[in-house]
C-alpha cells in the first residue's frame, strides 16, 4: 500500500522507486520518487527524510513539487556529501530504501498579495515551489535568484513561468546580472516597492544579509532553515535553532516548529556555527564515497 515492494528471498521490503531523474547542473540533480501518500499531502515549504540504502543516514530534503496523479514527489539535491553522492549514483527505475513525510509546517501564504522570493544556489529548488504556490494563489510574485556562476544556474524557466518579475544574479557575472541577491532587493525596496512578505531560502549567510537588507524597510521576512536533522519528527532535538524574541533567547525545533521562521528573530551566526559541527567528518566521508563510486 505504501510503496512498491521487492521480494528479497525471505520477506517483502517496501522501497521507493525513482520514477524520473534529471541533472539540473553538474552538481544538482532532480528526482521524482514514487511515494503516493507523501505526494497526496506535501505542501510547499515541507520536507521529507530519506535513506538511500539499508545502512544509510537519514537526510532531510525539501519537497520541490508533487505529482498527485502518478503519486511522485520531486526532490532536488546538491551533491555535497557522502549520502547525496550515493543518492545521485541511483538511476531512474532503481529504488531507495526509505522516504518519509511530509514533515514540517507548510509556508504561510495567507493574506499575501505581493511577495518577493529570494533564492540562492540549490535553495532555489525550495524557493521555486513556494513561488509557484504564491502565483497559484494569485499573489504578485517577484523572484530574485542567485548563483555562484553560469554553470550552476537552475530552474530559470520554472521561475519565469511563475514570477511577474524575475531577476537572475551570478556572483562572478558570468551570466545575467553581476552581484549577489541583496543588490536588486535593496534597489527595489529603495525604489518604493511594497512587499507584504519576503521569503528567503538559501545559504545561511545569504539569508542573514537578505534580512539585514530588508530591515530598514520594515518588510516581514521569512527564512527557511535547513539544519542538521536525524529523525525529523520532533524527537531528537538536533535541529534546534535559537530565536531572539524581545531580548529573550528561545529554543525552537526546525522539524516541527519550522522549517520557516521569522528571519528577524533567528540567530543566524549560531546556526552557521552549528551547521559546521561535523565538517571534518563529512569531508572525509564524502571523499571515501567518491573513491568507492569511482572504483565501481
Amino acid at each position, binding site marked *: *500500500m*505504501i510503496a512498491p515492494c521487492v521480494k528479497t528471498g525471505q520477506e517483502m521490503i*517496501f522501497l521507493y522507486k525513482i520514477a524520473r531523474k534529471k541533472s539540473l547542473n553538474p552538481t544538482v540533480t532532480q528526482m521524482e520518487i514514487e511515494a503516493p*501518500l*507523501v505526494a497526496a*499531502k506535501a505542501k510547499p515549504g515541507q520536507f521529507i527524510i530519506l*535513506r538511500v540504502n539499508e*545502512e*544509510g*543516514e*537519514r537526510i532531510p530534503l525539501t519537497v520541490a513539487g508533487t505529482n498527485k496523479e502518478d503519486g511522485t514527489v520531486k526532490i532536488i539535491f546538491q551533491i555535497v556529501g*557522502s*549520502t547525496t553522492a550515493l543518492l545521485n549514483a541511483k538511476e531512474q527505475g532503481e529504488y531507495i*530504501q*526509505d*522516504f*518519509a*513525510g*511530509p*514533515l514540517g509546517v507548510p509556508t504561510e501564504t495567507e493574506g499575501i498579495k505581493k511577495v518577493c522570493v529570494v533564492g540562492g544556489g540549490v535553495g532555489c529548488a525550495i524557493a521555486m515551489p513556494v513561488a509557484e504556490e504564491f502565483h497559484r494563489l494569485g499573489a504578485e510574485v517577484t523572484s530574485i535568484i542567485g548563483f555562484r556562476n553560469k554553470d550552476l544556474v537552475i530552474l530559470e524557466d520554472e521561475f519565469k513561468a511563475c514570477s511577474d518579475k524575475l531577476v537572475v544574479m551570478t556572483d562572478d557575472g558570468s551570466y545575467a546580472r553581476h552581484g549577489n541577491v541583496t543588490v536588486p532587493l535593496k534597489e527595489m525596496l529603495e525604489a518604493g516597492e511594497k512587499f507584504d512578505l519576503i521569503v528567503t531560502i538559501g545559504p545561511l549567510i545569504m539569508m542573514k544579509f537578505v534580512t539585514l537588507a530588508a530591515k530598514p524597510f520594515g518588510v516581514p521576512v521569512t527564512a527557511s532553515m535547513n539544519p542538521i536533522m*536525524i*529523525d525529523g*519528527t*520532533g*524527537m*531528537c*532535538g*538536533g535541529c*534546534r535553532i*535559537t530565536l531572539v524574541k524581545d531580548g529573550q533567547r528561545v*529554543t525552537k*525545533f526546525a522539524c*516541527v516548529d519550522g522549517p520557516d521562521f521569522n528571519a528577524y528573530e533567528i*540567530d543566524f551566526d*549560531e546556526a552557521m*556555527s*552549528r551547521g*559546521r*559541527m*561535523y*565538517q*571534518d*567528518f*563529512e569531508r572525509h*566521508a564524502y571523499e*571515501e564515497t567518491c573513491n568507492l563510486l569511482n572504483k565501481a
Partner: protein
Amino acid sequence: MAIIPKKHEMPTQEPAVRARNFSEVALGYTEEIALAEAQRCLNCKNRPCVEGCPVNVQIPDFIAKMKTGDFEGAYQVISQTSALPAVCGRVCPQEKQCESKCTLGIKFESVGIGRLERFAADYHRNSGAKAANKPVPNGHKVAIVGSGPSGLTCAGDLARKGYKVTVYEALHVAGGVLVYGIPEFRLPKAIVAEEVEGLKELGVDIETNVIIGKTLTIDELFDMGYEAVFVGSGAGLPNFMNIPGESLKGVYSANEFLTRSNLMKAYKENPVTPIMKGGNVAVVGGGNVAMDAARTALRLGADKVYIVYRRSLEELPARKEEVEHAMEEGIDFRLLCNPLEILGYNNTENPRDPMNGFVQKIRCIKMELGEPDASGRRRPVEIEGSEFDLDVDTVIMAIGTSPNPLIKSTTKGLEVNRKGGIIVNEDGLTTRDNVYAGGDAVTGAATVISAMGAGKTAAAAIDRLLSEKA
C-alpha cells in the same frame, strides 16, 4: 531445605572489558543458576508479586514451571500476559515492581524474578520454538500509532484476540525507544527484532515511514476502515535547562546522542552518521536515559565520563542495576551538583578558527538537600560560592522530554494537558471517541513496562468496545 538468603548473582562481562564494547553487559543465568534461583520462590498464597507487575505476569506460575525444568512452559505462562518477555526481563525496574513485593524479600533478598523471566524468554528464543498458530480473524480492524513498548503490547494483545492490527511507525525500523533509545549493551537489537517478528507471525502488519499526524491523520485512519486507534507515539522533544551555552557544538540531548549511536549505528566502525566521541563527557541527569548515555559515551571511547545530578544517590531515579554497572565501569558520579553554564572555545583573534563554538567546560555548582518538595523528594538548594568547572568536550542533556506535538496538532478534539500529554481516562480512552492512548505520549518520560501496562489496558478496552459492536 534452608532458604538461600541472597539472589543468585547475574553473570556479567568484566567491567573493564565491557566498558569498551557494545556487547550485552548481563550475560544471563545458566540453566543451573536458573533452576536454583527458581527454587527460592516460596510460591506463597497471596502472590503479591503479580500485583507489582504492570502487565500482571503470573509470576509464581511461571516460576513453578521453571522449578521442574519446563522452561518453555514458563515462557508460555509469561507470554499469556506480556507481549515482550525478553525485553522486560532486561529493562524493567524489578526492584520497584514485582521484586519489591516479594514475600521472601521481607527477610532476605527477593527472588530474581526479572532474571528468571529473561532466562525463560531467551530459552524460548534459542529453542527456535514457533509462535502459536495465527488466531481466527474476528473481522475488526485496529490501527496502532507507534511501534514502541505500548504500541507493540497493544498490537499483540489485540492480534491474539483475532483483530486485524496495523502498526504505523514514523522511523524506518520498528521498536521505538527499544531501538533508538536503549543501547545494544543493555538490550540487543536482535531481541527487539525477534519480538517484532513474533507479532508479525501473529498477523500484525507493521508499516514503517508513516508519520501519523503528517503522512496520514487519525481521521483518515477511520476513513480507511479502522474502528479504533491506539496512540503510543512516545516521547517527544527533549528538554533543555535553558542555561547559557546549550547551543554550542558538542551539546546533545540524550535522545539525539542515543539515536545517533543506537538507531543510526554510529557506534560501529566507519559509520555513515557522525557522533562526537572521545575526550571528556558530562551527562546531566540521573535517570535510565542518563545512565545509557553515559555508558554509551564510555564505550564510544571517552576518556572520562561524568554524571552530573542535582540530588543525591538515594534520589537517583535510574534502575539500581544500571547505576551499579555504571559505577563499576568507572563513570564519575558528581552528585548534588547542578550545571550553571556551558562554556565554549572562542578565539577572539581568529573568528575563523575551526575550534570556535565547540564545548570546553561545564560550570557547576554544589547543592545540598533542603525541605521536601511537592514530589516528596528533598529539594536541592545551591551552596553559595561552590561553583567549579569540569573540562569536557561533550555535554549530554538527559533531563526528560515533552510529548510529541504532531498528532495533537492535526487531530481535532484530542485534548492534552498543560505539559502536552494526551488526556485519557482509566481505560486509556482519549477525549475522542474510539481513540485510545498510552505510554510516554500520555505520561511524559516513564518506563518501558508502564507503557506496556497502558497498551494492555487500552487493548482490553478496545476489545470490550468492538466486541459489543460485533
